[in-house]
């Protein structure tokens, strides 16, 4: 990258774009009245997030984010929307309450950010970090099957239970009708 003069700027721009996409998608997801757009917002947000992961030097994670969140979670939600078709009811509350909620949210945001910032910059972390591995897929694989094998198994179990549970729930729901 260093041979290209404007690469710093381009990379910075792409980074900001990712961040903006993430936040904009999240806003769309939280604010729009139509559920289907809300799901789209989630998908956009996830794509932005994947970009951020990429900047954090974990392309594997970025692609997994897209695969799982966009390809699986969002699709499933849209599918559920198609089956259930719940559009958000028209809101009847006033502007004042929205403002109240908004300012409340802003305060929370600031507080959280401040907390994180404090945590991130002022705490006594071991700086500079001595990398013990390169964070590649091989390293992840090794860790998953050694250090974190128990957690890995538990997650698998959770997924299995979830699938069976989902099947059971969906079936009984249908039969009762």
């Amino acid at each position: 990258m260093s041979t290209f003069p404007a690469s710093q700027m381009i990379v910075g721009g792409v980074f900001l774009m990712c961040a903006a996409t993430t936040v904009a998608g999240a806003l769309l997801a939280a604010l729009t009245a139509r559920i289907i757009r809300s799901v789209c917002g989630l998908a956009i947000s996830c794509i932005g997030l994947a970009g951020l992961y990429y900047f954090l030097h974990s392309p594997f994670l970025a692609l997994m984010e897209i695969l799982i969140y966009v390809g699986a979670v969002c699709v499933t939600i849209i599918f559920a929307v198609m089956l259930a078709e719940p559009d958000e009811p028209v809101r009847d509350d006033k502007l004042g309450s929205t403002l109240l909620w908004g300012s409340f949210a802003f305060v929370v945001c600031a507080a959280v950010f401040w907390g994180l910032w404090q945590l991130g910059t002022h705490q006594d972390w071991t700086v500079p970090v001595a990398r013990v591995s390169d964070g590649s897929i091989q390293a992840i694989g090794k860790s998953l099957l050694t250090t974190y094998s128990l957690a890995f198994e538990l997650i698998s179990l959770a997924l299995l239970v979830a699938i069976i549970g989902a099947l059971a729930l969906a079936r009984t729901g249908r039969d009762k009708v």
Partner: protein
Amino acid sequence: MTPVPLPERPDLYFIVAALLLVIGIFGLLRRRTLIGMLISGELIFSAASLNLMTFNYFKAPDPTVGQIFVLFIMGLAAAEIAIALSIIIAVYRNYRSVKTKELSELSG
């Protein structure tokens, strides 16, 4: 001294993560439908994941740990979505509504 390139500044990630969290909480509180709340919940998960990754990348010695944790979060989120959606569909089939206000039977 050259300025720190943008992707190398943890505070930006923190801002994004904080925004995601707040938007998620906001949505969770404001949404009236179960699926909407679920989506907001996913945003909160995302915020947590991003935070984890940021700390891991900038502050932790082993870059794999964060990734693995985020992978776990994803797995859990997928499981959660599956369960939650099947519950939603079951609820919908029984009550013809996924609006939380109308689901008083659940709480009572």
